[in-house]
């Protein structure tokens, strides 16, 4: 699906660090003025938001979900990615973490498909380029 310039892109940030939320929000909204950002601090809250949109028959509730791995509650950003793969396959999910890559792959499961990964700490410029690429491509995974 190609977005027209005036069409709002919806991004869900799943992150429990306020500072990180605000920086990601800022990077997204300055990268594309038509981005609308929702926040959730846990996977459960993110799932509730997805279900709300699904109940309104919105087939692609978000154009991008950006999820930290370790969040409030038991579930991780990897769990959210797996759920989206099954329930919302059109929604690209990027996971972020300060985990070293080898631990990230161990968490996903060796030999399995891994979600796009944004390593922390990141430089704002690099993060912007990464997100621009994902949003312009329209589908990250």
């Amino acid at each position, binding site marked *: 699906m190609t977005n027209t310039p005036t069409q709002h892109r919806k991004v869900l940030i799943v992150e429990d*660090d306020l500072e*990180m939320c605000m920086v990601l*929000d*800022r990077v997204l909204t300055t990268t594309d003025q038509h981005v609308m950002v929702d926040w959730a601090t846990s996977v459960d809250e993110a799932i509730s938001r997805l279900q709300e949109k699904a109940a309104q028959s919105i087939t692609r509730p978000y154009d991008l979900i950006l999820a930290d791995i370790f969040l409030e509650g038991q579930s991780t950003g990897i769990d959210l990615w797996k759920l989206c793969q099954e329930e919302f396959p059109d929604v690209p999910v990027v996971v972020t973490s300060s985990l070293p890559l080898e631990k990230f792959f161990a968490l996903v499961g060796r030999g399995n498909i891994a979600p796009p990964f944004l390593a922390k700490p990141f430089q704002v410029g690099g993060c*912007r380029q990464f997100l621009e690429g994902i949003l312009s491509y329209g589908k990250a995974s």
Partner: protein
Amino acid sequence: MEKAALNLQLSLGRHERGLARSDHPVRSWMCYSLKNITMTETPCPPEVFIDPDILVLLPAYLLRRDADVLLLRKHIEVQDFESIRVIGHKLRGNGSLFGLDSISKTGEELESAAGDKDIFKVRKYIQELFEHLEKIKGRPQEDK
């Protein structure tokens, strides 16, 4: 003194989303911070680069770190190392977002010291955080 700082932080907190969205920069603060960051030598050297798009977030960020110092001092009084560790962990992650690697580094040390329940090191790194913040803001360091 502490109460005033916390009130200011909370007051900004209520508006921070609007602040980020509406590009309302709290201009005097922004210029103040920018001027002092570029002029400060260590631990925030002149070559520190802050992305212009997130510069608007810096004043509120620094106020929240001031509040962190107050909280950390309260936590150390009751030896609440877990709360200190969590604050240290977050500092580690978010300082370098603003190019403030010294904050990230101190956060990492604080997280580690709190994990070890090393009260002397924890006190040392809380003081270090306080000094970093004062230098960044260009204020004279007057610790109690």
